């Protein structure tokens, strides 16, 4: 599915060059459910940027499917994002002035799908996350869990091969978190690769495998989450 080979990323801070990612090297197979863990400052968000084609890297290689993602133009990057990747965010990031249906349909707008068609498809995806009846409600009328479901439906509508979830349960209570993780698992079972960035061991435990980042480096073996839950490997 995706493969990072010795990816390095530097940030220029004044005259200093900050080495944010150091020879990051890992692979995610098709249909895997993987957690990326790490404390803040470990390079998690940078890695997420790169995986989501929102940022470029300095050396190494990032391969998404058969494509090497390197030095893409902004519009090409946007096209790949639109086609391959679905994003799920901690704070949902639904557009407040649009209804649930319109929010879900938005990626199709950028694919140039006609209004009638995309609203119809968006309805199906809302159905899939169990929110058909909420189609005409705006985000402000919904609970956190519902909003995240809408966001997941929106991430799915472009038929991505990869879902990048950035702290998807960060703003939710534990019961709702569980439901959202159930939904992500279900999506994963349908064949879509899911990558969750989190610092919550319980979330990581629900995935098949955890990649740990520390000071920009991948640390430890790519241990199976179930046999090694919690933060033990971080030390």
């Amino acid at each position, binding site marked *: 599915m995706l493969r990072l080979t010795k990816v390095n990323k530097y940030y220029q801070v004044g005259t200093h060059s900050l080495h944010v990612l150091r020879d990051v090297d890992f692979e995610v197979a098709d249909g895997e459910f993987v957690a990326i863990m790490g404390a803040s400052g470990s390079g998690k*968000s940078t890695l*997420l*940027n790169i995986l*989501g084609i*929102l*940022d470029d890297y300095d050396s190494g290689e990032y391969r998404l499917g058969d494509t090497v993602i390197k030095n893409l133009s*902004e*519009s090409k990057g*946007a*096209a790949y*994002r*639109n*086609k391959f990747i679905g*994003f799920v*965010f*901690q*704070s949902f*990031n*639904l*557009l407040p*002035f649009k209804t649930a249906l*319109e929010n879900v349909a*938005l*990626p199709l*707008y*950028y*694919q*140039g799908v006609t*209004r009638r068609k995309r609203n119809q498809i968006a309805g199906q995806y809302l159905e899939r996350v169990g929110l058909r009846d909420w189609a005409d409600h705006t985000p402000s009328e919904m609970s956190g869990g519902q909003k995240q479901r809408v966001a997941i439906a*929106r991430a799915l509508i*472009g038929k991505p091969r990869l879902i990048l979830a*950035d702290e998807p349960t960060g703003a939710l209570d534990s019961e709702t978190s569980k439901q959202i993780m159930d939904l992500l698992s279900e999506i994963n079972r349908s064949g879509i690769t899911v990558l969750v960035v989190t610092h919550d061991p319980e979330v990581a435990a629900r995935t098949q495998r955890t990649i740990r980042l520390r000071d920009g480096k991948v640390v430890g073996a790519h241990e199976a989450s179930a046999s090694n839950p919690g933060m033990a490997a971080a030390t």
Partner: protein
Amino acid sequence: MLVALVKLLALGLGLSIVGVVLWLVFALLRIVWVSAIQWRDLFSIDRWTEVLVTIGRSKLRTALTMISVSWGIFVLVALLGLGNGLDNGMKKNFARDATNGVWISANKTSQAYGGYDVGRKLMFENADYERARKVDGIEYIAGQHFIRGQRWGSSLVTKRGAKANSFSLDAVHPEAIRLQSHSIAAGRFITTGDIQQTRKAAVIGQTVSHFLFEGANPIGEWIEIGSVPFQVVGVFSDPGGAEEERRIYIPISTAQLAFNGGEKVGMLQFTVGDASPEETERIIEQVKGQLADRYNFDPNDRQAVRVQNNIEQFERFRKLFWMISAFIVVIGLGTLAAGVVGVSNIMMIAVKERTKEIGVRKALGATPNSIIFMIIQEAVFLTGVAGLFGLAAGVACTELIGYLELTDFIHNPAIDIKVGIGATLFLVVAGALAGYFPARAAAKVNPIHALRDQ
């Protein structure tokens, strides 16, 4: 040293202006390019709904911005209209007489010359008219005889039956009509034949005709001017109105003969075609020179003959009005520019506020061009709607001024459709430019930073 400094400053200023212009041109090209890619968004219901919703989300801010743009375009249009009105007013005022006319009339000397004392009264003769005719550059020329020495109007009573009144009486050569904006409503004007045969022919203005004939056809009828019978051969009208039509023209030769005028000519009047003010000056000097030779006065004596020159006056007025108009346009454009910069500012703030939303859009696959076009679309919509309000208000204002006819100086101040279309286009371009810079800022939004930002 100082000169070098000034030169350096001028160079710097020039370069920075060129820089700004190039920058704007570049921005415009980019906008055109983005529009060529994103034109579909113009026909997207969703996009327009979004634009309306976004603009509607901060009503007060939107209203304030729109007022500033409206005000700018209003001031521009109203001032342009006023400028137009001044221009038309001037043209109308000058339309009463030929704009290229020159009047030279005999007066009193103010300088002793050639053995003659100061204060000598001068009078021209028919021979002077014949001589002046031959001057190069003169297009049409006529002499005028002042009946019984009365320069302005005449105390001669014009009578027809029981009706009698005093009208202005001009005894002239045929080409005198070329210096007026009269048009012949019936019959003809004075002809060379009239002059040669000293016919008792009269051409009367419409006011005169109405007074004496009360609607009946005056052509061929006889009237009495100073108890001399004249036959009406023509009626004229004038755009200057009734006051200009209170006149009677008779052949100069007839007047000289009938009213004991000898060979006297009180004034020479001529047009100079499309001669420049300088050429006109030369022609006037030549005619004056002939007269100075003949009557022994100092050619530099400014009192001996009076010269009234429409061209100089017209040019002076035109320059003045041109400067007023230019000034007006600069002020209007300045006001408008302030409004447009206001739009740019507001959009900048809006973009800052919407960083998150833009981040979401980018993460969902919006291209930078689509983001840029979205912001530009909003800006153009905002300026466009506000501008059209201002345009309508401005046009209404000029129409009102035109309708009220406040002063003679302003006539028909309406701006023409080309200016309206131009202003609208200008608004669209200005709106696009106003939106471009915030849009570029929006396109640079890093989605992850925007989305992490709580």
